[in-house]
Structure formats: C-alpha cells, structure tokens
C-alpha cells in the first residue's frame, strides 16, 4: 500500500484549494510511511486553526484540542504513556500567539515529540488577521496601518530556549520536508520544524513564489551543533532564507530523567493495593 493510501482519511478535507497545508500533509504521510509508523501507532495532537485540523485529514489517533494548548496536552499524554509517537500540528497563531508560553516551556523540558508549525504568517481560520510571524508593515483588515511588532522568529526562539533540534521547512518542497520530518521524529527529544506555508487566501505577501525566490536548502549532512551559528541561520530571513536542519545536538530528554518513568509507561503498571496501602498508612503517620 502506498503511504498515501495507508494514511488516507475517510474524512473530507476542508482546506482551500492550493493551500500550503496540502504539501505538509503529503510530507507527513511520506515521512511516517518511510519511518514505518503505522496509523495506529501515531498520535497527533493539535490546537485550533487550519493547521490544527490536519489530523482529521489523515488516518491516525488524534486529540484535536483547544487553541494554543496542544503542547500541554501532548506532554500529559507523553507522561502517561511514554511509548506514544507524538506529533503536534500547530499554526503560527496557535503556537506562537495563544500558545507562546507553552512553546517556550515545552522546549525547556525537552520531552520527546515533534512539533510542526504550519507558519503561514497569518490567522487563517479566523480569516486573515496578522499573526506573531506576520511581516512588519503587512496590512490586513485588522492592521490597516500595517503590522508594528517585530515578527517572532520561531526557530531562534526555540534555540534560545535550549532546543536540541530545530529546522525550517517549506510546504512547497514535499520531499525535503519529509526528510526533515523524518529526522525530527527520529531525534530523541523535543524537535521543532517551522514550516513556511503559503496561505493562498489571506497572505498575499508570503506566497509560494515569494518563498521560491528566497529559500535555499542547507546541506543536511553538515553537522549543525553550533548554537551561535544556528542563531545566525535562524536570523537569515531576508533575501536568502535557509531551509533544512538549523541545529541538531544531543540533549538529555525529559522523560528519561524522571525516575518513576524508568520502568516504562505509567499506564502499563498494574494497580498495586498492597504498596498503596502501606504507603498511605505510613504517610498518614508522617
């Protein structure tokens, strides 16, 4: 069975024709297929937004939660069952706006999961307001005089918070993106890919063409473990924008540092009334 069929969702897609999200969906299917993660072994967690609808359009287990909170839901799931393969699909608004606080702290924790930020630099589902990554000066019905704030640089933010795996991808380059997703999923720890994703309906600035004129692929065989070098790459956002792995370095993963979790998934442990009873009795007296 081809990956496309294997992960085919019976549910009808709701994105606009031509949306960059389709490329991301395709790259995900390709990557999971290559990694041999069956739909039944995949948990996708998402927030709310166009990006966050992704798991509906793919065969998998999913928790399509509330706006901005996917990373917290994912962390809870991971603590309960560390064997889960968790991928989080989030938007630039979902992840860096409403969910900004969880993003920075998720990076600090470094729990093993992969975050894909569909970065269309706009609020898509709510019809075209500026997002934290919108370019300065971009006008929208809500920002008639143009965006004032400095755009948030997701990869740089992740790096500063101590991320071990940071990449940039482009929805228009499915094979390359698939290779990034594969590397990210294989990374033991928290991995982030900020994915340039044209929104054909609301973002008339950062179009597919705009990206094609600017992006260049980094050589993935180069080692990328220099923090300050990675920061420089992350801030290359002008005429030339690198896509690829910006940084990859081994770091101690979160789950592996929790003593209680050394014995495997919490949910696999049987209920143990004897130990409980003893502990409770002693604790009452303490």
């Amino acid at each position: 069975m081809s990956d496309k069929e294997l992960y085919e969702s019976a549910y009808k897609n709701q994105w606009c024709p031509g949306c960059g999200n389709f490329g991301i969906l395709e790259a995900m299917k390709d990557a999971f297929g290559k990694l041999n993660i069956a739909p039944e072994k995949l948990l996708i967690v998402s927030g709310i937004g166009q990006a966050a609808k992704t798991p509906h359009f793919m065969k998998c287990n999913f928790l399509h939660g509330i706006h901005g909170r996917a990373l917290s839901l994912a962390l809870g799931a991971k603590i309960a069952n560390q064997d889960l393969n968790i991928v989080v699909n989030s938007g630039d608004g979902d992840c860096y706006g409403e969910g900004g606080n969880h993003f920075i702290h998720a990076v600090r924790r470094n729990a093993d999961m992969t975050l894909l930020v569909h970065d269309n630099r706009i609020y898509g589902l709510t019809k075209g307001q500026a997002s934290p990554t919108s370019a300065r000066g971009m006008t929208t019905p809500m920002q008639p005089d143009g965006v004032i704030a400095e755009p948030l640089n997701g990869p740089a933010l992740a790096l500063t918070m101590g991320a071990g795996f940071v990449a940039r991808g482009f929805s228009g380059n499915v094979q390359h993106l698939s290779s990034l997703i594969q590397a990210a999923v294989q990374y033991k720890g928290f991995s982030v890919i900020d994915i340039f994703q044209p929104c054909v309906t609301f973002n008339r600035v950062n179009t597919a063409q705009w990206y094609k004129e600017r992006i260049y692929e980094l050589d993935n065989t180069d080692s990328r473990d220099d923090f300050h070098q990675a920061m420089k790459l992350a801030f290359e956002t002008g005429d030339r924008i690198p896509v690829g792995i910006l940084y990859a370095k081994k770091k101690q993963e979160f789950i592996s540092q929790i003593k209680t979790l050394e014995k495997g998934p919490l949910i696999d442990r049987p209920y143990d009334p004897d130990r409980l009873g003893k502990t409770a009795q002693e604790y009452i007296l303490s």
Partner: protein
Amino acid sequence: MDITILIGGAAGQGIQTIGALLAKACCKAGYFAMAVNDFESRVRGGHSFFQIRISNKPVYSPQKTVDLLIALDQNTWQTHKQSLSEKSVVLADEDFSTTGQVVPVAFEQLAKEIGSKLFVNTVAAAAGLRILGADLGTVQSVIKDHFSTLKPELLEKNLDAAQKGFEKVADVSFEQQPLTDPSVPKGNLISCAKAIALGAVAADCRVGAFYPMSPATGIMQHLTELSKRLDLVVEQAEDEIAAANIVIGASFAGARAMTATSGGGFCLMTEALGLAGMTETPMVIVNAMRPGPSTGLPTRTAQGDLRFAIHASQDDFPRFVFAPGTPEQAFEQTRKAFHLSEKYQVPAIILVDQYLMDALFMLEKPFSIDTHVERFIVADEDMPDPKNYERFAFTDSGVSPRALPCRGDALVKVSSDEHRPDGHITENIDIRNAMMEKRHAKLPAMIDELDEPAAVNPEARTILIGWGSSAGAIKEATKRLRDKGLDIGCLLFSHIWPFPATAVGKVLQNNPDRQYICVEMNAGAQFAGILKEYTDIVFSGYVLKYDGRPFTAAFIEDALKEKELA
C-alpha cells in the same frame, strides 16, 4: 474537657512546630483534637497563629474562647486578649493586664541562653506541654521523638531548651491538664490536603500537574511526596492553563490525573474544563477556595466559588462537584471523583478551602484501600470491529466505550469541535443535537451516584443548611442550640452537583411551620440560590461570613440570635 490553645507569633517563628508538638502529644494521650492554621500572605513577620482544640469528645470546628495562649510576640497577645476568659492562662514575654492569668516567659532570652533564638520553639512547646500536665519525662520523650533526625549535640540543646521552658512554668496551675491522664490514642491528626492526596493515590491517580497557588499547593506537595514511592508523576507546569491541559492529555492517554488550584488558577482552567466536557475526557480538579474577588486574601478561607465551579466554561455539559467537610469525606470524595469522572467521562471538581487545607483534624479510622480499582476502558478485544471503533458512539446511557490511543487497531479520534460518533468535526444539525443529548443523557445516572445530604434532626422546626467545610461548625451549633432547648436540626451537603434535588425532600421530614436558614462562607448566599432554583425551600434568613476566617459554632449561634432566628 474542651480546651483551646492558641500559639501566635510572626511568620517564620515556628509556631506551627510548637502547635504540632502540642497537638500530637494530646492525641497520643488519647484526646480528640483539631487545629486551625492562620497566617498572612508573607514569609516572615506579620502575625500568624495555630489554634488547637482538645477534647474528650470528637471536635470538628474551632472554638472562640482561648484557654491557653502562647504569645511569642506582643502582637499576639494584643490581638487575642479579647478571646481570653477568667480561667485562661497566657504565656507571654511580658506581663499585661487582661482577664485570666499572665505568666511572663522570656522565650527569646531563654532560647538565647541555650545558644540561639532558634530554640524558642522548643522552649515554648515544653512550657505548653507542662501546662497541659506533662511531666518532664513526657516532655523529653516528645522532644526526642520530634527531633529524632537531628545531630546528637543539637538534640541535646533542644532538650536543654525544653527543660528551661518546663521549669519556667512548673508552678502554673491550669484548670485542665489532659496530659496527666492519658488513655489509648483515638487516631491521627491529618489535614484535608493530605486526605485529598491520599484519596487520589487510593484512586490510582498516576499523573498530577499543577502551578503553585495557595491554599492548593499543599495537596500537590503531598502528592509529590507520595510520588517518591508510587507509580505517580507530578509535574509543575508553567501556568494553570498548561496544568489543566496536561491533566487532560494524561487522562486521554489512559492515566488517572488531577490538578489543584485556587480561584485565580481555576479561572485559567475553565477553558480546559470545557475541553474535558466536550471530549468526554475524565479530569479531576481541586479548587481550594480563598476569599476573592481576584487575589483577595491569599492565605484565608472562603466558599465563594460555588456558582463559578458549577457554571464555569461556555455552554452546558455535565460535571460533578463535590464539597467534602472532613478528612474522611475528602479522602472518600476524591476517590469517588476519580471513579465517577472516569465512569461517566465527565470532569469532576472538588471544592475545598483554605480552612480545610491547612487545619488538622482527627482521623479515627485509617483510610481503606480497595483491592481493585475499576477502570472504564475498552481495548480491541472488547470490540466487535476495532477498525471501526467510534469514540463517541451513541449509547442509551450517553457513555461511549472509551479506548486509549495507540493501544491496538482501534483509532481514537477526539475533537473539541462538535463531532460525529467517529470523532470527526460535524456541522450537521441532527448529529449536533444527538451529541448534546448524549452528553446530557448521563445526568440521571450521575445524580443516582450521589449521596443524600447528611441530616441531623431532620424533623426539627428550624433547619440550618450548609455545605462543605462549614458542616463541622453547623453541626456543633445545632447541638449547642438543641442543648439549650431549641427545636433545630441541620442538613449538610457534600455532594453538590448534579444537584440532588429530590434527595432533599427524601431526607427532610415534613414540618408545616418550618424555617430554613442557610449558613455559608460567602457574601452572595450562593448555595441558597441553588436550593431556591431546584427545591421549593424558602429561606427565613442567612448566616453569611466572608472575612476569611473559619466558622465557629459560637459565631453561628450569635448570628442566629442577632437575626432573631434562634
């Protein structure tokens, strides 16, 4: 015998240590005891106190009159002298005029004579023990017991300090000397914070997530303590929003999970509460109430979040709300909250308050641990066709078989948007209506799970109605007023929501000229409002309190008298 000891001083002076020592000694000597913890929102300085009540009968609420006052600073005796009676004894570092007898004890000076003012605790504790009737041997053994982990030379110094304190008050005569007449211990002192943590682990809670907030932190602190020895992980989150969502994520993946917070943090959890409601994911939230609005009085007590807890989050969905009033109930209802939250796939809220969290109560029987915990989870084996598993399948009960993600062929698909039985988003009118009705279909069975309110003299002409932590003081006030000849009873709720409306009629016996009075710790008479909505009870009056300090029976009696209701 029924005496109250109050130890007061500045935050950081160790009054809780003194209090705990005295209370433990009395328990060991076979008395019943309870203790209230009163402190300000600061770490050092100010005024705090620890108030112990000791009796040969069970006690459930604090008393107004102080029989023994141990005042580590001037602030303490100035604040509390109006609570003294003729028979009271005061240990204070200087003399002052008051009703009762003042025994000057230069706590700090005596401590310094031993080597450091840090020994103030021990000096004061030993003096207190002596006044309560302990002989030097008993005092020494209590001190040894308490400081068992200290280095020998430090223990020695504490024993010296104890001797100083003991000797200083050797001749003071105090009316009641419980420690002279020990009997078999009746139980252990425990806070409801501890009881809730124990209830959680008894329910096999595996994940805790929290963000620190008084007065809820104690629960998570106990859970953290317990996590060292159990299959339990407690994670401190970056904020309450994260904490609540971590709980939902963990629960979704199959672990029983909880969080605890107070009003401000509960505000931030309301959106997640709705997520649990919509996705039918079990979730237990403790809201340990403190006075608001907003930051309010962070270290004090209140029952002001009742209506908020019941109606929090947009639109209607079923939930449980419990409001235990004793450690036994706190343990039992926490366990029940986990059980029912999972059985009905709805969120459960436990409403407690600072008073319950920080007070100590006597636990007579140890908590029991079930031999088996029923989970309400299905796996591939339980399904005719795992590949077509539907997380939100329609059922008569409204409860759909719940599978866990990545545990077999069954795909678990869950969305916070309105969804079809298979979990995918829908805008279809009929499915929307059916889903809304499915969720609400659980309500009758949920109500049946709840206990009736406890009643004392349900036939009486005057019925006091209360809930949660106020129960102790209400019960005691009822008793005291009956002893004075009043035809009074009370009705005490700890299972609050879904409101067990029909149970009220069942429990109360008809009385044609009855008067009802609601007693609660808020300004809005919130519980009375629920009764007005769901029963035909008409209230003759209210006893409300919102100063952040717990009810006493005397306060209730006085308020009733003042309002000419009793």
